[in-house]
Structure formats: C-alpha cells, structure tokens
C-alpha cells in the first residue's frame, strides 16, 4: 500500500519539478558591481508599428554616485505584457552600457519601458522610457508625413534628407510639439491641411493639399500627428504601463 503511493508522489514531484523548471526563465547573470543611477543613452521616444521591433535598440547607461560609468552591474528591462526585450537583462559592458532590442505590444498607444537595477543597499533604481506603437492608420499617416510634410515640419537635417525648416520665414510646427498642436481640433487641422495656412489665418507657406491628398489620407495624417505629439494628445490612446 505504501510503496505505490510513494511512487506516485515521486512521479508527481518529478513532473512538477520539470514543469516548473520549464516555466522558470534563464537565471539572471550575477552582478559584479552596483550603480547609483540609470540614464538613457539612446532609443527613447521611437515609433514603430504595433508588435514590431523599434528601428533602433534601446541603450541605457549605468553611473555611480560620482557620475562615472559602472561595468558589470545588472540591468533588467520590463514593460506591459506583449513587449519583448532581447536580451531582457544583462550586465553593463565596459562603457557601462546595456543594449537591448525592443518589440512593442500588439495594441497601438504608448508603451512605458522600465530599465531597473539595484544599488549597493539593494534599493531598486528605475529609468522610464516611452515608445510609441502605431496602428495601421497611423503608419499610413507616417508614410504620408515622410513624403509630404517631414521636409518642412521636421527641423532635423540629415545628409540624405536636408530639412527645409530653417529656410522658412514662418516656422512650421514640428509634429511632436504637443503643447500647441493638441489645442488645435481635428476639424481645424483638417482645414489647415486641406486649404492651407490662410484657412486659419496662418502662414501661406503651408500649401493646400485637398487636391493631392484624399479625405482618408488627411485623417491618417492627423492620427499620426496625434500619435507622436509630446505631451501626448488625448486622442492618442492609452498608455501601456507595467501594472
């Protein structure tokens, strides 16, 4: 009577043990140092389509209290469900940095990404970054923005794509300028895009696009403008933070 039950218990234990070990993720690397502050090196405020990889990896740097970089400290990344990191945790390299590629979740909106580490006294230190996942319509808007708007509305110049922003007497609003753009209603934005700046007593340097862009094109553009504005526009959708 005792023996079979013992066997069953052992079997059960074995099954449980294996299933648990399957579930447990790879062990965390052991830190050899501890930092005092995490700062962003690059990779925040990027846009990507829902579910897809950010174009650039996220790079964070770990510093000690004096502001010198710390090598060998553990940094873990976390975010709302659906966001994946490759790698999800790592030790800082010789320049005190950790690099991870990030895939956003499947729903459009803003995703908060948290990079965290522990200092010497095992207190948790966090750095929050924000990334933007674009829906289909917003992606379409981004594409139209790149073709028609970006050259004037984006002050950033690259060798391949020289910005026209500085050449304009009246400066256009960069689409990230949430403080002013969030105050303009969808109807007013539609009017400006369709009929040009003078439609709302603004600069004539902004031409009328109603004969070039379709109504749904303009809707897509506005949805993109709302998605990238900073501070966020109310219409841009939810912020997915870690619960």
């Amino acid at each position, binding site marked *: 009577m005792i023996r079979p039950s013992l066997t069953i218990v052992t079997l059960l234990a074995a099954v449980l043990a294996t299933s648990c070990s399957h579930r447990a993720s790879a062990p965390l690397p052991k830190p050899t140092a501890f930092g005092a502050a995490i700062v962003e090196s690059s990779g925040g405020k990027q846009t990507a389509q829902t579910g897809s990889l950010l174009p650039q990896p996220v790079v964070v740097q770990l510093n000690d209290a004096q502001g010198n970089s710390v090598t060998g400290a553990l940094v873990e990344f976390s975010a709302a469900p659906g966001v994946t990191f490759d790698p999800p945790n790592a030790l800082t390299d010789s320049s005190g940095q950790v690099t991870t590629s990030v895939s956003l979740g499947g729903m459009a909106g803003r995703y908060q990404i948290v990079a965290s580490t522990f200092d010497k006294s095992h207190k948790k230190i966090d750095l929050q970054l924000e990334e933007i996942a674009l829906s289909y319509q917003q992606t379409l808007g981004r*594409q139209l923005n790149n073709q028609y708007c970006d050259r004037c509305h984006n002050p950033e110049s690259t060798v391949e794509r020289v910005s026209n922003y500085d050449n304009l007497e009246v400066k256009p609003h960069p689409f990230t300028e949430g403080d002013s753009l969030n105050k303009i209603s969808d109807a007013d934005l539609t009017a400006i895009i369709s009929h040009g700046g003078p439609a709302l007593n603004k600069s004539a340097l902004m031409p009328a696009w109603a*004969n070039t862009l379709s109504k749904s094109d303009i809707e897509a553009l506005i949805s993109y403008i709302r998605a990238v504005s900073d501070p966020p526009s109310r219409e841009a959708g939810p912020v997915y933070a870690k619960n």
Partner: protein
Amino acid sequence: MKEKLTSLWQKLFGDSVRAFGVVSFIFLVSLAVAPAKNYFSEWRHYQHGYLQMIRNRSDANTLQRHFRGGIQQIWLPEIDVVDRCTSCHVALKEASLADVPIQPFRPHPVIPHKLDQFGCTICHRGQGAATTVAEAHNSTLAWEQPILPARYIESSCGECHRGPLAGTPVLNRGRNMLSREGCVHCHTVKLPDGSTMKATDDPPSLSHIADKTTREWIFAWLKDPQAYASTATMPNFKLTDDDARDISAFLIANSTPAPGDTVALSAKPSTDPAAGASLYGESFCASCHAAQNAAGNLVGGDVGPELTRVGNKVKPEWLQAWLRNPRTYDAETAMPHYRFNDAQIATLSGFLLAKTDSDLLANVHLEAATPEQIAHGKRLVSDYGCASCHEIAGIKKPEAFAPELSHIGSKPIAQLIFLPGMPHTLPDYIAGKIKQPRAFSPGLKMPQYTFTPMQIDALTTALLSLNDRSNTLPPSLAVAAIPESNYEPAGKAGKLMNDLACFSCHRINGHGGDMAPDLTWEGSSVQREWLVRFLKNPGTLRPSLIRRMPRFNLTDSEANELTDYIMTVYQSPAVDRDSMPLSGYSPGQVELGKQLFYGKYACQACHIVDSNRDKGYIGPTLTQVGSRLTAAWIDQWMKDPQALRPGTTEPNRAMSDEDARALTAFLMSQKGAGKSEVARTKR
C-alpha cells in the same frame, strides 16, 4: 471495506422507490450540466464584465444600445469565414472606447476594411469558430492555427494584395528582399497569379573570374564575404579552409580569358589621391556605390557593390578595362559606360586601387592547386549550388535546388522540426530558419545571412503571405500587382541608352529604377537646347540632393542623338509643346505671376527663383527654369502635377487657367544667367 459498500448500496437502492428517486436525481444533475457549462462560459463572463465596465461611462446608454448579448458570429461563406470572436470582443466598433487599455474590450483600430465584410481570422488567423479563449487563440490538438503575432500581421494583407501598399511597409520590404537578396535563385516562389518571382540582384558570372581577381581574394571572400564588404549580398557558407581552397582552385582553373576584358595598362594608375577623389565625386560614383569614409561610415548608394576594399579585389588591368567599358566583361551590367579618356582611367583606377585593407589577405597563403583539389572544388561548387546564382562555365544551373516556398505560409506544424526551446509556431520556425539555418542541422546547405532582426521580420512576413488562402483566393477578390513592363527603347538611341544604363536609375514607361526622375514624358517637359547641355554636363536641379546624374563625357553627336530621341518619343498626349511660346509674355502678366508666386501660392517655401531672397530647398531651383522647361508643360503642371508625374510631392493647387498662365509667364521669364540670356541681349 466490503461491508461499507454493501450498506451504502442498501441505503441508496434498498427498495424500488428509493432507487427510482436516486436515479432520477442523478439524471437531473447530469441534465443540468450543459446549461451550467453554458452559464459559466468565458464569453458570458466577458460580456458581463463589459456591461459592468460601460455602466459608469458618460455614453453608457449608447454603448448599451449597441451591445448584443449571446454568441455572435460573422459568417462569410464566400471566403470560408465563421468568426465568433465578436462574442468576447464586443466593442470592436466602439470608437469612443479608444482609451480602454484592456482586451477584449478595445475597439478595433481604423483599417480600410469593414469587419462585417472580412471577419477577424482572415487577418489575425486563429480559430474563428471556437468559443473559448484558449481554443480561439492558441493551437490545440484539433486546430493548429494560432493567432498571428502582430509583428507579422501585414502578411495577411499580402494574401489578396499582390502589389505594394502604402500601409504595409514591412510586407513590401520583405517581398523586395526575396528578390533582392537572391532567395529566389534557389527557392522557387510561384505567385498566386501564376508568375514566378524573379531575382533582382545580379550575381556576377564566374566564367572569366581569373581575369578580374586573384585566387587569394576568392578564398578570403568565400570564407567571409562580409569581412570584405559589410553590405555584401553573398551569404557565408561557413566553408572550411580546405573547401575554400579547393573551390577557389576550381574557379581559377575553370576560368577562361574573355577578349578585351583586360588591357595592357594604358597609363600607370595615378597616385594622386586628390585628383582621384574629385573625379570619383564628379562622376557621382557614390550615387550607386558605397564606401567607408575616414570616420568609418558607409557613404553612397546600394545599386553597385561596396568599394571600401576594392583594391584588394580587382586586378589593375581588369579595372582599367572595366572603367573603359564595363559591357565588354558583363553585357548586362547596371554600370553605365562612362566615356572616360586614358588620363581619367589612370586617375580613377589609381584612386580605387588604393582602397585596400592590409589585413584582408595578410594571412592567405595558397599553394599551387593539385588536380585532386580542383576536382574536389568542382564537386563542392555543384553541391552548394553555386550555379543557382552565378554563371559558371561547364556547370548547369540546378533545377529546384532548394525547397519551393510557394505555400510556405500554410505549412502544417506537424511537418516542422523545431529547435529545443523554440515556440512551436510557424512564424517562429520561419524566422529561426532565416536567422540561423545551420542550427537546424549542420548538414544543411542553406548559408548564413547577416540580416538584421527587422529584415528577418520582413522576410518572415512576406513568406507567411504565401499560403493556401492566397493561392486559392477567388480571382475577383485579389488585387493584382502592376507588373514591371519590359519596355525597351528602340534603334540607335535605344542602344545608347542601354550603354549608358539610363534604366538603372530612371524609369520610362513602367520600366527602370526609382532613384532618378521618371522620364516617360521628358520630351514634353524640357527644351531641346537645355537637354543637350544637360546631357553633356549635368548639374543638379535640387539643392538638397546628394545623388545626381553623372557626366558620361558624351560626344556632341551622341548628346544630339539622345536628345532627338527623347524629344520625339517621350511626349505626353496631355501637353502640346508648341501651344505656348517660350518667351514674349507681357510685363503685366509676368508681374501678376510674380505676385501669385510669392503671395497666393507662396511657392518660395519650396523653390528658389531669386537666389538672394528665396531659400526653398525642396523642389528644383527655378532660377533658369525659363531656359529649361516648356511653357506648355509648366502651364499643365500648375493645373495638375500628379497627372504628369504620379506621386510627385508638389501639391495640386487646382489653379485656374488665368493663374496658371500668369505663373507660366513669370517662370518663363526666369532665363537665368545662362547662354540664352546673353543671346537675348545681343539680339
């Protein structure tokens, strides 16, 4: 034990009345199971949760009115859709719930299709008929179609849309890569429209390779193509030193000299780096070729091969012959035939040959090849399917060298072998196979590519769209791609255009590249004198462009021949070139046009007419536009630019005839400081 059972039996079934009661009770309980299961079902739980959630919202009444309880279903027999997803995803059409962060209550983002007409599983995959969360989203024993991860969602667009779409950048990139990265050299991809996908890369023929390069370079290249050029398309076959030695031995031994592809050095390659750099610059080699600059950044286009270490690769006598006329060595090359003179060839070849990396071949020391090694090399070349991509004399291009991929997006999971620890889904399998093919079995021939994670996602997306549904879709539902035309210009001028490789950058009648303007209607657009001048000495029209038309050193007769052909053949039926004069507009009209230019239409935002005053940096500079364009073209362009050049950035201002005429008059008065101005003052 036995006694206890007997007494229990007695208690329950002791007499017939008691037995009847007990049996009836069991019967009743079992009858109640089905309704109870239904009552506690997941969808009911979610519908209940939804009603709770909307109760406190300001638009609760509207939302409540839209709500339909019970199992919901979208049934589309024509495309085989039975989707019950809306039983839980109850608010897909409620735009006002955009701020709700939790599923299944999010509204569906705006897409060009109506949910009632397409259902859910067409795009998202999963089991439409299922009514539990697990069965609908994951693969189960009965159904193996799990939900498609959002990163690959564009693959579903590709089932019906066979051409590129503005809203599907990932799918478009993936499809281009299948052609551009050479996948379809080995893997056959039959498209649902019956055509076979064609490769757009142009792997060089290896039949005369010994004229071009050394065995040492071939060895180093075979071992690690990306060590020579980080942008190389050639993948890494992970060859052993011995195998690379033998393949290089075979390729050199198999190579035959091609007449004229090497020249006795007409001039010693020049060692003047400044002159070389300036000729490289003014020939706009960087429009197509990339090279690392001093800071280690790659600068230049990706039409031709990277030139960072080209001095390690090519033999000087081959390079000079190539620069003289690349078509002698490769009749189909995308490289134009620059008419360089001997001094220019010496300068440019010297500049290119100096682009070396002393480490690249430092450790390559090969003994003379033995016949056994050459024979072994030949066998390896057949085994690895080198001839799938490269032309190699004496080796036939293998048929169906690698598995066909026409239905890869529907491959049953039961037929796949997964790596340990890998999620058992088709997208993960495809992505894993592209990322590290040899991890699946060391004996696999598929080489190692150096794709970025984004490129792997794109390729996976494109492959997932090649599935059973896309192949069996009723033709009425498919949206066909616009096929690349096989337009060829005719006659002597046509030969000249091919010699200059115009189509590597320009598009004409639906054929050619997209780096430079479409020339289909160039003959209606420009003035003859300007075109001759431009062909002989091209400048840039746009101040902000770094890629430009090179100077081909054309003779007068070549430039005239080409111009005559363009002026006669590339005419738009919408523009009558002779309907408006090139000059002679009244000063009043010119002045009115000027006011419109700077006032109503604010063209100076993008264009420069007066270089002291205007700064517009996007459109072409217009300081000499009156000597460049025809008046009829400008007039028509003002009224509808996209009709003349689809996709152009210039907004359509729907100008009245009067405004268009006045602006034309103003622009035609902008003759610039060029020859025509001088000519006019003389007259």
